[in-house]
């Protein structure tokens, strides 16, 4: 294959653009891996490059589609007579019934070739996975495939109750194959580097909370535990550093009595191990809720880092949800719905009112905040034109040890329209927090130890 180095360089560049940190050492290893493995088997090449370039499992989701662009399955179309829609559906049904992956890949190529093309003038033409799937409608094959498989093995076994879900997973695999194929065809006509950066979905931790879809939010929720473990490590390191402290002379001398007065072991002054207290005030309305839910789960997962955590949710009224969060550990996906069903969050209307909610907090729960408490406010500070109640925030800042405000909107939008962000930011430290990656960095740095 020509330009191997070029391909590796391109691949590495695209991965870096997606936030994967790759040094020169890894690039050299990757080249050695390619040399040792050769090009005969693309799957081995893929694994070899992943082993040398990646450092963690989360990176694989962006690696695979990028690899498919720089080391494509082939060049051009499938080279067969364009099959019609009905014929493709028949053959796809068979492939799904047999769970034949390589046949599914072939069919994905034929389908994109036959159904996915659009435009006719160079520059405006291309290949669309969406159009392909919209015309082929693989999801409507479910019943047919089920009957096929059932007819074959009698369908009486226990495991056949699993069949529907298994077929759905196979259809999902096929959809991915179509997406991969369409990207490959597009990249042949346009700038590959550009496609690798734009058309490959970023890892979930780099998606804006405000624009994340349902499945991205679900994917994010699965990263809560690993992220919490990572943060716990970082907090422990900070705590150790803070505790290392100074030599306690008196205790050093006292303990030296056993060694004849020679101070063999310096005794370090220990800080009191009192863990800090945390209070969370979360706007859970509409588009901000993805952000709040994730942050609440993350803090809950970190609960043993604190002596006390209390969590309050609001829209235009505020209610404590600490208990809901604790009991809901087994079912993180349902957290948002539970909070909205069981807590009193709204009064006369359904839109957020920061002023009223914050006022309600200082009034009803002001006593929960003391000199050991760090408070996090989560929300976009969009008050729907009502009074932001700066006095309540001032009061909060006065009684707490620290108050941080995490705002999921891009900084450039603070203060536009009904956003009271700049006013609040004058009273408490406000940070932009658009993605899980940013949140991790902020929590790791801001949480008290």
């Amino acid at each position, binding site marked *: 294959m020509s330009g191997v180095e070029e391909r590796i360089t391109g691949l590495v560049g695209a991965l870096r653009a997606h936030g994967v*940190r790759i*040094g020169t*050492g*890894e690039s050299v*290893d990757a080249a*050695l*891996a390619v040399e*040792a*493995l050769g090009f005969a*088997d693309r*799957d*081995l090449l893929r*694994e*070899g490059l*992943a*082993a*040398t370039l*990646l*450092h*963690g*499992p989360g990176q*694989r989701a962006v690696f695979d589609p990028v690899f498919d662009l720089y080391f494509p399955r082939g060049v051009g179309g499938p080279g067969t007579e364009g099959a019609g829609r009905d014929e493709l559906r028949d053959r796809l049904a068979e492939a799904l019934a047999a769970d034949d992956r390589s046949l599914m890949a072939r069919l994905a190529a034929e389908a994109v070739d036959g159904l996915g093309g659009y435009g006719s003038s160079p520059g405006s033409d291309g290949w669309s996975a969406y159009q392909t799937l919209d015309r082929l409608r693989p999801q409507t094959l479910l019943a047919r495939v089920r009957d096929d498989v059932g007819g074959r093995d009698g369908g009486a*076994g*226990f*495991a056949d*109750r*699993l069949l529907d*879900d*298994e077929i759905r*997973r196979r259809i999902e695999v096929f959809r991915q194959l179509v997406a991969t194929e369409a990207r490959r065809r597009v990249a042949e006509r346009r700038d590959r580097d550009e496609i690798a950066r734009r058309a490959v979905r970023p890892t979930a931790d780099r998606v804006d909370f405000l624009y994340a879809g349902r499945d991205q939010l679900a994917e994010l929720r699965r990263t809560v535990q*690993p992220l919490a*473990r*990572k943060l*716990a*490590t970082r907090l*422990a*390191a900070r705590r150790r550093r803070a505790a290392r402290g100074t030599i306690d002379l008196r205790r050093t001398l006292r303990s030296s009595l056993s060694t004849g007065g020679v101070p063999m072991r310096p005794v370090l002054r220990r800080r009191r191990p009192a863990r800090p207290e945390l209070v969370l005030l979360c706007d859970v309305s509409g588009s901000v809720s993805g952000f709040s839910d994730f942050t609440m789960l993350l803090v809950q997962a970190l609960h043993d880092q604190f002596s006390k955590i209390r969590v309050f949710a609001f829209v235009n009224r505020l209610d404590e949800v600490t208990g809901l969060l604790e009991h809901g550990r*087994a*079912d993180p*996906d349902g957290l948002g719905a539970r909070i909205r069903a069981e807590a009193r969050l709204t009064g006369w209307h359904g839109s957020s009112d920061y002023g009223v909610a914050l006022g309600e907090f200082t009034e009803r729960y002001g006593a929960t905040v003391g000199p050991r408490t760090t408070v996090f406010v989560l929300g976009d500070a969009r008050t729907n034109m009502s009074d932001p109640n700066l006095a309540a925030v001032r009061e909060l800042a006065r009684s707490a040890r620290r108050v941080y405000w995490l705002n999921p909107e891009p900084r450039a939008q603070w203060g536009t329209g009904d956003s009271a962000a700049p006013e609040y930011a004058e009273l408490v430290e406000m940070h932009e927090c658009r993605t899980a990656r940013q949140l991790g960095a902020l929590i790791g740095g801001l949480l008290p130890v």
Partner: protein
Amino acid sequence: MNKRLDSERTLIPTQPEAPLFSSVDDVSARLAETGYLASPAVATTVFLAARLGKPLLVEGPAGVGKTELAKAVAQVAKARLIRLQCYEGVDESRALYEWNHAKQLLRISAGRDESWDETRTDIFSEEFLLPRPLLTAIRGDEPTVLLIDETDKADVEMEGLLLEVLSDFQVTVPELGTITATRRPFVVLTSNAGRELSEALRRRCLFLHIGFPEEELERRIVRLKVPGLGAALAESVVRVVGALRAMDLRKVPSVAETIDWAHTLLALGADTLDEAVVRDTLGVILKHQDDVQKAAAKLDLDAL
């Protein structure tokens, strides 16, 4: 004089050894002979680790065969397996070396009429050194697989030590000098991601994530480990386990549980799965009572 030359010659590395594996297929075939069935990802990465001489960091959920892989590689390479089992609080004296204080004290009191200098030279010599796994692995001349198991359980401080050892494959004992490996061990580190390992350590290693195997591979593993089990039952077992993994459970079953379940079914003499058998044995695959209940509901089993 002669003696001195002799001992020096043994330090000169011998001829470069024949490569451990000739190809990725060779890896798969030989691991399979020991009873380890490698996915293409596993075989490729093991092949590269041997070729590039880099440590292999294996991450993945419990029970997917991380430890077993290191053992299988050792067997294939006819190498000695040296294992450093990590745990909270493991330190240099457990991982690297320690002086045998008791023996040193005995020696000191035995040699009353020597000068302190003589005694000191003597008690800080090989004879009083207790080598631990890292040092043992570096000093040996025979082929060695060093398994640093459950690295994530060790404290962060331990990583500094590992980094040092894995960079140069040498260890400095202040009283003795620097000891360099004459033959680099094949190193496997495993982690359950209980704690995030540092970027620096990750960079030293080739990275391999072992997830749950594809259905076909898991079927082969089950049939290999539980030879008496029929093909049809093995297939059903793997399908049910696959369905459980897709559920949102506190602890989803791993390969180890699939094998346990297969053993149980064989012992019960079941030759197909039915509701009663699954209901009675679900506890073998799932460890938490609420998982059992959730799974039973989703699998349409009658109330437990």
